[in-house]
């Protein structure tokens, strides 16, 4: 094959990773239409969108860079308190709060990254867990600032972009959260398909070869960790703004643990895992809680055991089949 022809093939192949799959477009259209299809479920949809953003954040470090964490709630909480405090004391503008929440959590990620990035998976689990526990106790102790166990109350939010007021049905909240999720998803999609994203996958696959290929592993992982922290901070900010309340619960261990479950359900490393996992996890939680409010944890636990033991292949296989059908549908339409 001649050189220019082969270069064209190389270009097309590199582009393949960035190309929009018809199933992706369908996914986002459905997400947008959800508030029309289920007008009474906006509050739940909002929770799903926020959990999805939080899971996307963990996917960035776990699925793409191979960093395990059991303390991702540290960044969710930091973003929530930062946004909450800003709204209470400085400005009620949601986007300003979002930016401050992301910046605060991103900074915390950058500062703690040297601790987290040295060592093995096991030490990483312990250190991330430790950092989250420390933050929880700090938030508890500084009650004057955070409200302690009573939570941060009295947050009043202004309208989004000065135009859209938050309503009691959660419709604005959902559309706001979904918009933020979508924009940050687009950024994540771009980043993971960039040379930077490729180098993260390289480190995840083989750190020895990555450094032998000229990749400065430590710097790249620190950057990815800070980015993911900022994403979690955004999720926290959305949570604080749309519920107009921040409790210590945002820093609690179960937040980090739930998140791991979300990624296990959805699968890591392809960006949609956290989103699909969040939908499944929240719907399951909601459904079980409706018919047995006291024992829903039991059923979630049972489901997870069965899921990990064998159901995962079946469900992921079904998702792939559906995605494949959409692809054929899209091609058919293009012709």
């Amino acid at each position: 094959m001649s050189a220019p022809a082969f270069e064209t093939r190389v270009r097309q192949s590199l582009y393949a990773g960035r190309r929009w799959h018809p199933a992706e477009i369908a996914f986002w259209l459905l997400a947008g239409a959800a508030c029309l299809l289920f007008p009474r479920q906006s509050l739940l949809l909002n929770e799903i969108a926020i959990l999805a953003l939080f899971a996307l954040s963990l996917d960035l470090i776990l699925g793409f860079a191979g960093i395990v964490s059991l303390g991702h709630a540290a960044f969710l909480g930091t973003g929530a308190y930062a946004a909450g405090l800003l709204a209470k004391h400085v400005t009620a503008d949601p986007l300003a709060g979002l930016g401050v929440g992301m910046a605060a959590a991103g900074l915390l990620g950058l500062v703690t990254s040297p601790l987290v990035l040295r060592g093995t998976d096991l030490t990483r689990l312990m250190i991330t867990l430790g950092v989250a526990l420390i933050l929880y106790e700090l938030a508890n102790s500084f009650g004057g600032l955070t409200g302690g166990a009573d939570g941060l109350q009295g947050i009043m939010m202004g309208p989004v972009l000065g135009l859209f007021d938050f309503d009691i049905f959660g419709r604005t909240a959902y559309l706001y959260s979904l918009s933020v999720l979508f924009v940050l998803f687009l950024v994540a999609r771009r980043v993971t398909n960039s040379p930077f994203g490729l180098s993260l996958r390289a480190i995840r696959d083989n750190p020895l070869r990555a450094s032998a290929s000229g990749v400065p592993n430590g710097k790249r992982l620190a950057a990815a960790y800070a980015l993911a922290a900022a994403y979690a901070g955004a999720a926290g900010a959305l949570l604080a703004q749309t519920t107009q309340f921040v409790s210590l619960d945002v820093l609690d261990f179960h937040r980090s643990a739930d998140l791991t479950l979300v990624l296990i359900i959805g699968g890591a490393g392809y960006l949609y895992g956290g989103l699909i996992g969040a939908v499944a996890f929240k719907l399951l939680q909601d459904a079980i809680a409706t018919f047995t409010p006291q024992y829903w944890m039991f059923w979630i636990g049972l489901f997870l055991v069965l899921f990990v033991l064998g159901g995962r292949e079946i469900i992921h296989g079904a998702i792939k089949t559906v995605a494949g059908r959409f692809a054929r549908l899209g091609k058919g339409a293009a012709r």
Partner: protein
Amino acid sequence: MSAVLQTFDLYKSFGGITATDHVDFTLQRGACHALIGPNGAGKTTFVNQLTGVLRPTGGRIALMGEDITKLPRETRVRRGLARTFQINQLFATMTPLEMIALVTSERLGRGARPFHALDRDPELIAETAEILSRFRLDDIMDQRIATLPYGKQRQVEIAAAFAAKPSVLLLDEPAAGVPEAERRELMSTVAALPADVSVLLIEHDMDLVFRFATRITVLVNGRVLAEGTPDEVARNPAVREAYLGEAAHV
């Protein structure tokens, strides 16, 4: 001829065991220099110090006349010192295309750019395509590396090191585990590398060594036993005794 890679009095010990025993070594520009020696002679330990995987206990390493003894691995790669590994070190979930594109993007300084699109980078595409063609990986460039046959994986390993455009290429037993039939093809791609790439070859297959090397250093117990052209080394009685002797008895 000028020296591209040198060690001065290089010394490495693990506890009480001396793995590299005061080695002075010089790799000349454009050479294909083989490093041979029996198992446990310290060949891989030596290479690991050159590339920064291990820190020497004493002595210095110079690349193009500059001291690199304490530089981190990735900086040595950027300065032009690339290597392959005795046991494949590949990115299992990537395709050969992605792996070569990664090395090329790091070499071109794109790696820290989070919003750069690989497919809109003509320079990167041209260089990636050139490497893939040179190493005959064009037909399999979209398959996952983990699914490739071993000989092809070995080819990817060498291609990835070469994609860093090194001035010095360290090949740690490139033909190890490759079936006899594919060895020649593998080594002929090595022999066809541009003359400005200096190669340090560690290899057990004496047939390959004497066919491709322009110079040979014999390492025994961490010490340089002999050095010279293939003819000189083959005639050296100490070498025959210590190393080639085994083959002579067969």
